């Protein structure tokens, strides 16, 4: 009885300092414990909730770990074929120009099989927001090499490490996309620390505000961990990400207000 009383007490509106977005469906996520997807989902839904645009937002989920994103986000969504989310989003936005349209895609989906759709949607300057989760691996299919896998990084299809002469270089597709005139805002963020989470949320909010103004395509890369695929604990994976992913995929704004930010690296 005492315990229950305490719970109701806590649940009083005036005592709530933080709760998950009502746009997150109340069901367990399919992601591995420690994965950044859940946090990225939450930031996205918080922005849509705060802007009060859930009735005017249409999302497109990919094929990959986040294939079931539509099960967790309580907004209207379409599940795309592998890599084709930007094509879907293009048509949706063209026919619902006053709606907010976003895609949520992983690195295999966006930067390998969907490269053509990604580049062309960006180049046309579609007024959509692309959220790109880069964890350098194909998580869902069991940890195969991705277009963004780092040189020397091990995966199930590069078991001795990515050998650049035979397997090619990792693709910095975000830098590539930033060059395209149709793209207005490009940033690279992370969700592994409270500070980074705040920055990511700010970036998503900015992208949606810019979409409202029809400024062109906004592209947010979130460098994330894959503790299962990388075969590490969540804590180890975040440390590894900071030490290995961030030097290659440098965090920060890449293009703001349609202008490229001067790169120091």
């Amino acid at each position: 009885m005492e315990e229950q009383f305490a719970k109701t007490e806590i649940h009083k509106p005036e005592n709530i300092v933080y709760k998950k977005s009502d746009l997150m469906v109340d069901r367990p996520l399919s992601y591995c414990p420690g994965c950044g997807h859940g946090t990225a989902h939450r930031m996205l839904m918080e922005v849509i909730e705060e802007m009060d645009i859930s009735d005017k937002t249409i999302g497109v989920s990919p094929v990959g770990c986040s294939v079931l994103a539509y099960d967790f986000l309580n907004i209207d969504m379409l599940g795309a074929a592998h890599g084709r989310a930007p094509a879907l989003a293009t048509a949706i936005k063209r026919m619902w120009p006053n709606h907010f349209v976003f895609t949520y895609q992983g690195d295999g989906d966006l930067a390998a099989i969907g490269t053509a759709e990604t580049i062309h949607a960006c180049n046309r300057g579609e007024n959509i927001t692309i959220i790109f989760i880069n964890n350098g691996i194909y998580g869902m299919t069991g940890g195969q090499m991705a277009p963004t896998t780092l040189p020397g990084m091990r995966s199930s299809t590069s078991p001795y490490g990515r050998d650049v002469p035979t397997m090619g270089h990792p693709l910095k597709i975000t830098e590539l996309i930033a060059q395209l005139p149709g793209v207005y805002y490009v940033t690279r963020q992370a969700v592994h620390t409270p500070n980074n989470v705040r920055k990511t949320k700010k970036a998503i909010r900015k992208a949606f505000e810019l979409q409202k103004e029809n400024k062109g395509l906004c592209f947010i890369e979130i460098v994330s961990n894959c503790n299962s695929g990388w075969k590490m604990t969540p804590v180890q994976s975040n440390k590894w990400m900071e030490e290995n992913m961030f030097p290659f995929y440098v965090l920060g704004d890449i293009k703001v207000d349609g202008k490229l930010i001067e790169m120091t690296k």
Partner: protein
Amino acid sequence: MGELKLMKGNEAVAEAAIRAGCDGYFGYPITPQSEVMEYLMAEKPFERTGMVVLQAESEVAAINMLYGGAGTGKMVMTSSSSPGVSLMQEGISYLAGAELPAVIVNIVRGGPGLGTIQPSQADYFQAVKGGGHGDYKMLVLAPASVQEMCDHVKLAFDKAFEYRTPVMILSDGAIGQMMEKVVLFDQIPRRTDEELIKQCPWASNGRPKTRNHNIITSLDLDPAGQERVNLKLQAKYQMMEKNEVLYEEIQCEDADYLLVAFGLSARICQKALDLARAKGIKVGLFRPITLFPFPAIEVSNVGNRVKGILVVEMNAGQMIEDVKLSVGCKVKIEHYGRFGGIIPSPDEVVKALTQKIIGG
């Protein structure tokens, strides 16, 4: 009566799309169907009706744009020719799996591979038997004139929404390119957002706070769930077989011999029929208009009254399999086909009928 015009088949498809109230066309240029998008871009339907026309970066993108638009309840169409439609097969499978209404026009050219840009009917199997992965069908219409190119667009949209299914118009390079007079139906206004939402309560176009979210997907990881999806699709195809069969019988009542042909081949067979009848051979023509659902009972009824059947196709023998399955083995059934973009002449058809069926 509607407006009378002299038009190419491809242009008739484009004009019919505008008039049917289509919301979006997404395509990629390929011979011999490029006039569809050329006509649309020149006509500025975005000014006439508000219809969106977009040139995609590939047929893969185009079919997925269709999926995106259809998933929000919009009336969407694409057109292509054989190699491009091969690229679309993945997307068509997803459209079927997610039960989305869309119209796909295939102005068939000869294959395999890059093949030829000349007309062919060699994509019958691909259109009628599935084409992409998984157990699915499309409703397939086979126009045999520019008039039908126009009328079938309207019909295709109606059926696509009635059954929530992709519908294919399977034409060919000759009908796409040839000019005939066509009576155009009057402009049907595009649906308002309110009408769309009422017609498509399943569509993902923004969740009002009064309902739960709509999800458009072809994925169900639970085998029992995915089996239910398949059973639902199969039930839908059975309904189509029951209710949507279209065909034409020409002089079949007194026929001793039967020609079975669709699309352009049926046009040629009509002339062959006249030539044969002038020689005193009583020939009839059976033309399936829907290739799926195939007019199985109807062709069997006629087919079992005659002494022999010649199936004429611009391919190596594809629809003949459905004719044989329908008619059975009591009647002699032979095939006459030309390939690679060659259109058979009526004389050839009469000769083949004489040699393979009457004399054989």
